[in-house]
């Protein structure tokens, strides 16, 4: 007797059994609608928590006078586009380097040494084990003195920041590529192209890459989204990137940071929409977690 009404309990036991069986038919429906109500409540509360900070930021950014000044001011600031462009370029280079490393590796592991897969998977998980702040600590202390003083020059620092981002991108890229490779018959494609006389380079470039296009693009958008907002690594390597710019703005201006935060949120959203659009077209899925 779990869901009987309070008054029923005082009835004679036999009557109670009868009542219970006769009440059994309508009861499930009421229970389902009650639980549905509860799930609606959960969903609405969750949605509120998601949306309120965005609304708060929007409301704050619109307080600037005249209307929309926070946005026009932000965009008019030459630093805005300069840092955004810097982060974007760094992001694109990161994606290219990451693809050039990950695709041949994942392909080779899949084709020749499948038993290495756990090891490779572990290596691609390393960025989770070594948080960005530790990674950049290691990089700065290693490369800021002889024999390889990279942080002394702009170029050296750019190399460092790109290599750090490439490392950060490994988990996303590898997962995306691995999912993509799973969807195609690597073995047959390799044998077919080799029997047609293609070398390894040609095989990778003309057969494997095109087949992985969707997976690569979704990995690329995710990496871009992460790199554009990244703060920790960029700031300790003193790079003129978008993340440090927002942080600086947050300390100096009133309304503009709200506007730029929303713009940055919009960029992340754009990347995710691209990924889910791509996901509909083929393999590849939304990946998780970025630089905090």
């Amino acid at each position, binding site marked *: 007797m779990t869901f009987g009404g309070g008054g029923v309990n005082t009835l004679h036991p036999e009557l109670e059994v009868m009542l219970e069986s006769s009440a059994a038919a309508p009861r499930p429906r009421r229970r389902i609608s009650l639980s549905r109500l509860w799930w609606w409540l959960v969903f609405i509360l969750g949605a509120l928590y998601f949306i309120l900070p965005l609304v708060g930021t929007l409301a704050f950014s619109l307080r600037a006078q005249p209307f929309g000044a926070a946005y026009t001011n932000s965009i008019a600031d030459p630093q805005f586009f300069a840092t955004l462009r810097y982060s974007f370029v760094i992001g694109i280079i990161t994606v290219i380097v990451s693809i050039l490393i990950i695709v041949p590796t994942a392909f080779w592991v899949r084709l020749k040494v499948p038993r290495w897969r756990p090891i490779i998977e572990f290596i691609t998980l390393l960025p989770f084990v070594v948080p960005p*702040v530790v990674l950049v600590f290691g990089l700065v202390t290693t490369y800021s003195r002889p024999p390889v003083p990279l942080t002394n020059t702009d170029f050296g620092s750019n190399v460092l920041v790109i290599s750090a981002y490439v490392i950060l991108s490994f988990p996303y890229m590898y997962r995306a590529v691995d999912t993509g490779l799973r969807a195609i018959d690597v073995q047959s494609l390799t044998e077919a192209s080799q029997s047609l006389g293609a070398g390894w380079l040609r095989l990778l470039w003309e057969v494997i890459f095109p087949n992985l296009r969707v997976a690569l693009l979704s990995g690329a958008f995710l990496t871009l989204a992460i790199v554009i907002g990244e703060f920790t690594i960029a700031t300790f390597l003193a790079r003129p990137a978008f993340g440090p710019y927002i942080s600086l703005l947050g300390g100096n201006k009133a309304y503009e940071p709200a506007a730029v935060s929303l713009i940055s949120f919009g960029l992340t959203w754009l990347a995710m929409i691209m990924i889910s659009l791509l996901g509909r077209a083929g393999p590849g899925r939304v990946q998780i977690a970025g630089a905090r």
Partner: protein
Amino acid sequence: MLIPTIYLVVGSFRDNAGEFTVQNYADLGSDLTRQAYLTSIEISLVTAIAGAILGFLLAFAVISGGLPPVFRGALMTFSGVASNFAGIPLALAFIFTIGRTGLVTALLVDLFGLNIYGAGFKLFSKLGIEIVYLYFQFPLMVLIIAPAIDGLRRDWREASENMGASSAQYWRYVALPILTPSILGATILLFGNSFGAQATAFQLAPLVNIAPLLIGRQLSGDVLHNPGLGYALAMGMVVIMGITILGYSLLQRRSERWLRR
């Protein structure tokens, strides 16, 4: 990647003059650093557990709670965005919302006459950090746990109902035992996720004493500049994260048993 790691290990055993020492690790026991680690671990635990519970409920609501399927797609996309929306912009968004002059702060005063700042609330505090971290914690939970909830097959529920199990019994003996490894694994991942976070806390509450900020300060040489201690701090974080990921992959292997079919 490997060179800096090796350097880190070696460096953590050197003092400022380059001599071998374990003093850096001994320094980890000092009040300042111990406190930093404890606070970090506490924040990570709280946000991981709260995030896991909320994320699970939310994922379950849209998958099996009888809500229209549109909401499921919306939640998934939004979770993808929110779990990646972190760092500086996130911290700023919360400052604008429940900071001193934020929208929600003002609304609470207007609607309920409740002044949270009068009541001692501070966004630039441990609690504040926890509230903000939850914003990327539970979307991540939604994303990780959704496949596991999807994996709960209708047949199991129907089978247990046919055998006369109540809803509570179904959860106690069927659903939870299957989901436990996934939930635990996801919680561990959330722990690591917030343990390594630096940028958000830096913008929100730079003065709160947590491990990632302490390393950052060692690096930028603000106060007690001692690279050796920085190495040891970094190693401490790596060790904790290593344990975290190890636990995660063990549980992952266990939960995949059910998901594969």
